[in-house]
């Protein structure tokens, strides 16, 4: 990086190199076709090339890269989950994230802020103690803290929450971070492109050919592609893809909304989450408060926004921060969350030979981008899922071996 900067300083020209080559028409066949050019799909393409030398790979994106849930989340990265399997998995992701700007040679604005999950009731405190003990056991830095420590980290917070839901304590997770989410998609796209993968935008998958239980090819709006291995990494579009191969899953789609305020001077250093008040909030490097809440209450395949969401969220924000009453919400949006019954993802092989699933990312996908890319690349290269994602396999439902993450994956349950 410094050399390139120096070079630009010495010349009068500042060529802006393309992040990745623009391909129009796919080749006749690829070793691997990845459906979905979000963080997960692009990371899988990157690690397939980097870790396994598989470079004859096409990434097909219906819209533009990072335009789905990768660019719609609230960018929080953490590993303070509830099950040892979950904590180990997300911890591996946090560790990759910490060095990812360096590895991808792109500033991802990865900023470690510390993450407080506020508890307003005794039963919430119990869950926090449970999570803290599981985290410590696995070697992740989480501990239960009292109101004093929360007040020290965030003096602006009204600890009584307008007297409605006084804060009793919190789970403090030191590695909790935020990152520039579109940068993650672009960084992985450039990395994958440099190693030989081909990225196709505006390319929609119309069907998948399965003959005798084996994947043979993919029909797209830009022609037919022969391939024996397909990875579906399409989050909210997963049921449409699994329907193409007649695969049943527990996934249902609910919109998840988020919004930002106008920019302010920096005042919120940490990431705050309140399960009881259905709020998570952090301040972006641009000064906006980035806020999210719980899922929309019923199934819709749409990214529409609702007034109910902003009303509910801002009312709870004002319980926590009454001084924000004059601050304006400037943008609001939604993503389609692919929810699973146990709030854990569905990753790995499927009953169809050559069809791999990276799905069920619901409201918890962004933080897992690097490790899901790495483990899915491993799964495709070896046609066998690594132990790290064994608990996330599709067949866990048939085995009644669910991986219950409901207490840690989301707010408002």
């Amino acid at each position, binding site marked *: 990086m410094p050399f390139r900067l120096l070079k630009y300083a010495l010349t009068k020209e500042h060529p802006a190199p393309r992040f990745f080559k623009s391909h129009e028409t796919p080749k006749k066949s690829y070793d691997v076709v990845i459906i979905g050019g979000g963080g997960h799909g692009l990371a899988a393409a990157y690690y397939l090339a980097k870790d396994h030398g598989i470079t004859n790979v096409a990434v097909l994106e219906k819209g533009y890269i990072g335009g789905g849930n990768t660019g719609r989340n609230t960018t929080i990265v953490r590993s303070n989950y509830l099950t040892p399997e979950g904590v180990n998995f997300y911890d591996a992701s946090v560790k990759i994230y910490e060095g990812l700007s360096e590895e991808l040679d792109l500033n991802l604005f990865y900023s470690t802020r510390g993450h407080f999950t506020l508890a307003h009731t005794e039963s919430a405190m119990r869950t926090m103690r449970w999570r803290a003990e599981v985290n410590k056991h696995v070697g992740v830095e989480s501990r239960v803290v009292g109101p004093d420590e929360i007040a020290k980290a965030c003096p602006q917070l009204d600890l009584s929450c307008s007297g409605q839901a006084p804060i009793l304590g919190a789970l403090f997770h030191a590695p909790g971070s935020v990152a520039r989410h579109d940068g993650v998609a672009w960084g992985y796209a450039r990395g994958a492109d440099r190693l030989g993968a081909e990225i196709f935008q505006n390319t929609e998958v119309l069907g998948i050919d399965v003959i005798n239980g084996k994947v043979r090819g993919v029909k797209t709006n830009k022609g037919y592609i022969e391939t024996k291995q397909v990875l579906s990494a399409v989050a909210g579009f*997963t*049921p*449409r893809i*699994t*329907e193409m191969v007649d695969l*049943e*899953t*527990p*996934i*249902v*789609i609910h919109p998840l909304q988020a919004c930002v305020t106008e920019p302010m001077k920096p005042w919120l250093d940490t990431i705050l989450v309140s399960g009881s008040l259905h709020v998570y909030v952090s301040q972006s490097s641009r000064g906006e408060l980035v806020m999210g809440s719980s899922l929309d*209450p*019923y*199934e*819709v*395949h*749409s990214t*529409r926004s609702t007034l*109910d969401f902003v009303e509910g969220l801002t009312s709870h924000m004002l319980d926590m921060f009454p001084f924000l009453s004059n601050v304006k919400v400037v943008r609001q949006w939604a993503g389609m969350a*692919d929810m699973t*019954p146990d709030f854990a993802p569905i990753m790995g092989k499927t009953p169809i030979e050559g069809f791999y699933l990276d799905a069920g990312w619901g409201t918890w996908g962004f933080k897992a981008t690097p490790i899901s890319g790495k483990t899915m690349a491993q799964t495709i290269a070896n046609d066998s899922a690594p132990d790290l994602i064994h608990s996330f396999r599709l067949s866990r*439902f*048939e085995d*009644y071996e669910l991986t219950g993450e409901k207490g840690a994956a989301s707010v408002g349950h």
Partner: protein
Amino acid sequence: MKLLTCPINGTRPLSEFIFGGEYREAPNQDSCTDAEWAAYVHNRSGAPGDKKEWWYHSPSGTWFIAERNTLTDKVSRTYLLGPNNTANIDINPVQEASK
């Protein structure tokens, strides 16, 4: 969708209703296989389209069926479920209930 029509109470704001999930027929638990039962317990038809769903009107405690397109979020009709799972108390057979 901001309004929904309860078959008993008429058109009411959506905030009065609770989504109860897709209406599904259970397989015969005496004759189905373990795999079929596991699929019934966990799997859902997640792809968008016209679906028959359970909805609950909370103030009056009324469970009823809504036929809704999950892509467009338009409800085509709502009715109470009668004996033999038929819509025999069909107060509002075809009513536009969404905006």
